[in-house]
């Protein structure tokens, strides 16, 4: 089936592209850089938008970290960035603290690590690595980006609302998120949040459908599913999870909009606030929690799976060694994807739901540790007896495995309903998820950017700056999140504006200062990355076609981007992507386009 599809596309695409190429001068600036249908340009648009959102998200985290470390102190930077209204005399207001926490979470999870990571690399790599001229629907792809852009703009606009942006936490649990009387941010700010997210979900769905269709239909000749690079497997399965779970968040958002604006009572009941009884009756906030986490939990895998895929690919090509256990890696991606949809209740052990459900979700949650462990062991074994090329992308990949293990292990504590009782919603949780999905996914993204920069911009990033970026980030990431486990186990709740009202927590103040210092330093060194990124984009050393001597198809395309990716026919694939250092070959890599030698055997299960 795929071969037929391929021929058709090939004939078609080839023709189109000749046309496009011949009349290259006719492409206007707007067609080429703004409303582009080309997947490579769309990938760059996602990357830049994601990076800008990332800067906003990280700066916000610095502001609230400063507030926690030096509570209610006046900072000039607060005056400048938050203004006199949100930070009178440079002292952050308590509800603005919550607003910053909320928008930081929203931006980092959705706009940076979903759209910025998966959007960038799905768009860039899916057509290039499966041997397709473009996405199945270029138009839908463009639409997907621009809807994402609009949602990002709305989210940023919500920061300027007078009563403040959404402040109910990124999980926007009602009634807090539904009632402007409960917190100022639940007025217009929350409305904009919901509108932005609704558009974001539509964008994400269009993107995901496109990715799935492209992977299924447009693989080149010889590219069977078991010859797909693990990046594609991960991005493909991520898209499927997105299609399954994002619509549920949309329904939760719609019902919440109705509760807020049209007086329905899906999530609200028996509320007495600001001296009056509200009319809501019969709804349940727990229902919202179920709907939210039905997306929310798969969402963390939507964030981490692409990073896993990128890391697998980068690690194997830099280790000059096949990925260990290719089939087990695919199986564990599928197992994680399946299990991710039935573990959401572990966010709700103490929500008031039936404790029997808690038992079930403990069971499924701890099950998911098994495929995760398999992946970690396989990465470690991939390094064993390799010839490791310590490029910045490789360092970030190794760093990814390290933080994924550290953060993943504490998941065993939190996934256990009993143990969750006392660490739920404390800094222990903050430490856990930042390491396992925040930092790890960011490492995956950095690794991807360093590795595919030559493909994106035709130039190389400076490696020295890359090394500095990695080592400082690696130290600071642990410096920030490792101590958080301790203050969490000391009982310190998250989302507290200041801890000074509890003398019990006085001895944690020093730790909070250390955490904030690491955060400030770590963030400052991201400037090294940004400089490297933007400088190299224009002034970096010119890249050659296959700088990392990798096997996958994207490195068979010319450095200069052309519409349709390959100037001639689409290459045919003869082998899996991981024939690195295969005995019987002179070079330590054998691209997928190299036919099997006479008598050459496949040395791996396929």
């Amino acid at each position, binding site marked *: 089936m795929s071969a037929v599809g391929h021929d058709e596309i090939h004939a078609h695409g080839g023709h189109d592209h000749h046309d496009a190429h011949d009349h290259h001068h006719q492409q206007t600036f707007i067609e080429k850089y703004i409303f582009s249908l080309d997947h490579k340009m769309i990938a760059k648009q996602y990357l830049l938008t994601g990076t800008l959102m990332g800067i906003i998200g990280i700066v916000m985290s610095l502001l609230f970290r400063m507030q926690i470390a030096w509570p209610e102190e006046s900072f000039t930077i607060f005056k400048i960035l938050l203004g006199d209204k949100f930070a009178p005399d440079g002292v952050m207001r308590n509800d603005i603290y919550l607003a910053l926490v909320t928008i930081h979470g929203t931006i980092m999870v959705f706009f940076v690590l979903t759209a910025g990571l998966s959007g960038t690399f799905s768009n860039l790599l899916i057509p290039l690595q499966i041997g397709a001229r473009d996405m199945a629907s270029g138009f839908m792809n463009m639409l997907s980006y621009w809807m994402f852009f609009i949602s990002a703009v709305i989210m940023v606009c919500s920061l300027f609302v007078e009563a403040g942006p959404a402040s109910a936490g990124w999980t926007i649990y009602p009634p807090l998120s539904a009632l402007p009387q409960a917190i100022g941010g639940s007025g217009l700010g929350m409305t904009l949040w919901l509108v932005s997210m609704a558009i974001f979900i539509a964008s994400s769905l269009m993107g995901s459908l496109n990715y799935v269709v492209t992977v299924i239909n447009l693989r080149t000749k010889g590219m069977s599913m078991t010859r797909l690079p693990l990046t594609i497997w991960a991005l493909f399965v991520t898209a499927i999870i997105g299609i399954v779970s994002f619509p549920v968040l949309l329904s939760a958002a719609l019902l919440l909009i109705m509760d807020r604006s049209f007086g329905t009572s899906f999530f609200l009941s028996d509320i007495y606030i600001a001296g009056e009884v509200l009319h809501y009756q019969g709804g349940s906030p727990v229902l919202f929690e179920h709907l939210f986490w039905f997306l929310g939990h798969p969402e963390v895998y939507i964030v981490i799976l692409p990073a896993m895929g990128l890391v697998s690919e980068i690690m194997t090509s830099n280790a000059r060694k096949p990925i260990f256990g290719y089939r087990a890696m695919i199986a564990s991606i599928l197992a994680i994807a399946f299990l991710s949809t039935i573990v959401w209740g572990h966010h709700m052990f103490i929500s008031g739901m039936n404790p029997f459900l808690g038992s079930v979700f403990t069971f499924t949650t701890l099950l998911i540790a098994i495929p995760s462990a398999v992946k970690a062991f396989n990465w470690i074994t991939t390094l064993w007896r390799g010839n490791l090329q310590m490029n910045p992308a490789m360092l970030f990949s190794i760093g990814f495995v390290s933080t994924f293990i550290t953060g993943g292990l504490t998941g065993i504590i939190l996934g256990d*309903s009993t143990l969750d009782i006392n660490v739920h919603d404390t800094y222990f949780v903050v430490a856990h998820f930042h390491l396992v999905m925040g930092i790890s996914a960011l490492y995956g993204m950095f690794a991807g950017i360093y590795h595919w920069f030559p493909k994106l911009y035709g130039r190389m990033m400076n490696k020295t700056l890359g090394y500095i970026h990695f080592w400082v980030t690696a130290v600071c990431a642990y410096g920030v999140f490792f101590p958080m486990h301790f203050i969490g186990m000391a009982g310190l709740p998250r989302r507290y504006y200041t801890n000074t009202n509890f003398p019990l927590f006085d001895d944690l103040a020093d730790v909070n200062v250390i955490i904030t210092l690491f955060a400030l330093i770590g963030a400052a060194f991201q400037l090294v990355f940004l400089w490297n990124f933007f400088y190299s984009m224009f002034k970096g050393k010119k890249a050659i076609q296959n700088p990392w001597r990798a096997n996958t198809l994207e490195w068979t395309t010319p450095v200069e981007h052309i519409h349709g990716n390959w100037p001639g026919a689409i290459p045919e694939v003869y082998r899996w992507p991981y024939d690195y250092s295969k005995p019987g070959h002179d070079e330590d890599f054998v691209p997928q386009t190299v036919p099997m030698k006479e008598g050459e055997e496949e040395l791996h299960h396929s």
Partner: protein
Amino acid sequence: MTSLLVIVVLVLLGIAIWQLTKIFHLTQVGAATYNENPEVASDKDNKVNGYLMFGFLGFIYVFTIYSISKWGNLLLGTPASAHGPQYDSLMSISMWIIGIVQVITQFLLHYFAFIYRGEIGKKAFYYADNDKLEFIWTIIPVIVLAGLILYGLYAWTNIMFIDEESKEDALYVEVYGKQFNWEVRYAGKDGKLGKANIRYIEGVNTLGVDMGDANAQDDIQASELHLPKGRQVIFKFRSQDVLHSAYMPHFRAQMNVVPGMVTQFAFVPTVTTDEMRQDPAIMSKVAHINELRSKQSAKATAEGGAAVEPYTFDYLLLCNKICGASHYNMQMKVVVEDEATFNKWLNSKQTLAAAVKESKKDAAAPATDETSPEKAKDTTNTTKPDSTATMTVAQVTKK
């Protein structure tokens, strides 16, 4: 002091970067590259970063040991509830297991990164899969996790499935959350909490107790949570407005407080407040905190401010679910005392019926008429005010 620390750290960092840049630049001098492309790791890059990987392993270990020795004493200490020791033992078993796994896997990861760093002329070992290995590292987590799951579920069942019928002498306490404080209501002599709904909120009846319910008459309202040592306490949680979470860390207890529904949790307090104040770990924690506070006081008074009061240990109930601007200050003192002291305290309190009667006597008559519960009931005729009966009881009650 803090600013000095900041400056020192910044200076050290500056030196570190300068040195790092220098090292990396030196590696470029006459370096043979693995391949001749620009900006690809050279042999020396591999070497430097390989060693740094090994150094990073050291950093992880040293930082872990430092954290445990420096901050290990920050933890909560002796549990004050009957199920607490079981919770703590499950926690320490899990921590030991993940600690061991952490030490081993981080070692393998970074050691391999160091020892197999790239060199020109070296060829990697083509090793694509091994079913036996895959099986081993699937089955080991399966066995370990099965153990943890079984123990965890055993503890979970003990803690969460409340056997109300066999606990006849249990104390029923309602904990009521609202922006931004807590209130409590005791069941009184009959051992039964009266029905309640926010639509009955009026004057002193701030919890919206249905005063028409016979069980409600002897209920006792308080703003401090007192608990008797050694008796099963069954908490019923209600919220007036938004989600809250009743977190009592010393008792290893937490339950969300949900508007429109009654949630529950139960435990047996085992250590009185006075006994806990004599606990060695708590004493050293309190001493440490007071040392910090006296420094703070000295600084504050030097600047002309007020000194902070010294800290004495008390159990706390804190809000642990984001609930609004003052979420960070929604707390209530919890006092555990022996049965006799507890009863004395409770008996000194007025019953709700008496309190309502008294306030009605004090207040002008017409004011009460307008907000009478009957009226509230009429205006929201879809509502059945005895919410306790219609509301979902969150937890399974064992029959």
